[in-house]
């Protein structure tokens, strides 16, 4: 399975060259650090799916000595691995350019990424090849817009929400969101496995 995850780096040699400028662009744009973490995390998995929506890729992977379970697992584990690496890289870049960020930003960025991954990954196995990238890219843009809208919404209706949130302890809040996100990710993993298992190539 490690090979399947490593495969993404070999496949995306060229794309990785634009990874650094891509992240730096958002840093210079003074984007919210959480958003930068999210964008950086999405980069590799999304590129992987651009390859993997092709029928040939699935025929190849399924003809090699891998089980379908492993192929799906490599996507989900790989996404987390690359998320960690991307967030590490982005933090370094933010630090170098002297932009402030907090651990909370990281937590929000990675939670949003996992949420995004949990919602979109199964789509790749449901939708027909060719449409998937479009759907996901549009989906991603919508998510980002919603994220900003949510920020505005939060700013406006802060009192009601803060009242609710302050009612909870910080730990409960973080732990609760973490559990929710991870559960969703796990459910998504299971759904993808079931769909992929039944697929014909």
């Amino acid at each position, binding site marked *: 399975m490690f*090979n399947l995850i490593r495969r993404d780096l*070999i*496949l995306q040699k060229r794309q990785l060259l634009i990874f650094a400028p891509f992240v730096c662009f958002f840093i210079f744009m003074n984007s919210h650090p959480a958003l930068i973490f999210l964008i950086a995390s999405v980069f590799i998995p999304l590129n992987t799916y651009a390859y993997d929506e092709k029928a*040939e890729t699935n*025929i190849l992977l*399924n003809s*090699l000595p*891998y089980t379908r379970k492993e192929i799906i697992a490599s996507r989900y584990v790989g996404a987390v691995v690359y998320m960690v690496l991307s967030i590490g890289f982005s933090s370094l870049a933010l630090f170098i350019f002297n932009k402030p960020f907090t651990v909370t930003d990281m937590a929000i960025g990675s939670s949003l990424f996992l949420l995004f991954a949990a919602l979109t990954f199964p789509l790749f196995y449901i939708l027909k090849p060719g449409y998937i990238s479009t759907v996901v890219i549009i989906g991603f843009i919508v998510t980002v817009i919603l994220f900003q809208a949510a920020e505005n919404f939060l700013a406006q209706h802060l009192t009601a929400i803060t009242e609710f949130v302050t009612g909870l302890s910080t730990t409960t809040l973080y732990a609760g969101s973490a559990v929710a996100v991870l559960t969703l990710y796990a459910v998504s993993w299971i759904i993808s496995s079931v769909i992929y298992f039944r697929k*014909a190539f």
Partner: protein
Amino acid sequence: MENVVELNNVSKSFKGFSIDHMDLQVKKGFVTGFIGANGAGKSTTIKMMMNLLRPDNGEVKILGLDYETHEKAIKERIGFVYDGNVFFEGLNLKDIKRIVAPAYKSWDHSLFAQYVEQFELPLNKPIKTFSKGMQMKVSLAIALSHHAELIIMDEPTAGLDPIFRRELLDLLQELMVDGERTIFFSTHITTDLDRIADYIAFIQNGELIFNQSIHEVAENYALVKGGMELLDRDTEKSFVHVHRAPTGFEALTDNISAVKNTFGNEVIIERASLEDIMYYVKGGKNVV
């Protein structure tokens, strides 16, 4: 004799096409040619052998193992060559090797290097710049570099020029010398099989018409030619299909001795080529 592939009572249905209760055995150490018209079910059968497609019913056994419990062990020992390129076309061969090689426990780097040299494959050019023949050689080099015991090829010669086809046949023949390898080879170009096939499996509309050694095929099927006056409802019974012309008839029989009994020396009996068999069987039994 040992069977490397066994399909037992396998069924798979799609909209407008189905394979019903197919039994197919592929014998170890021999080349089995899998023939049939386009759309007859060759690719579907091969996909079921590769577990790219699951049968609705029935059992698929490869090297004595089933996919439910031994998927990795089976695929470790299969080499595959598909009609089109399945490798990431933007990558060069070196990178493809870096992706594919670690998947196999038994990958042999020096053997791969040897085939790359023998096939004159460039390591640093993207696969999409390769000709069809070269892409096929890439698949073959990969299949051979992990010591595959069963090589499954889906239309490997389609779109290849005659010289390339011949080279491929030479190579396959060399592979058969030690007797450890089995080749299952689908094609609609039957002349490819004249030279190397030991067994012929013939599929038509999702149904396996026969799976016989080339000697059995030659002994069972023949072309019969004679005058129209010889044909009547009774004599036609020994023919699979009859083609009539003002100059006489030509028919395919799957029962040579019956034809000899009925017509004696009044007809000419000739060897039927695989193409003749495919053509006449498509016409259906006793269709006029």
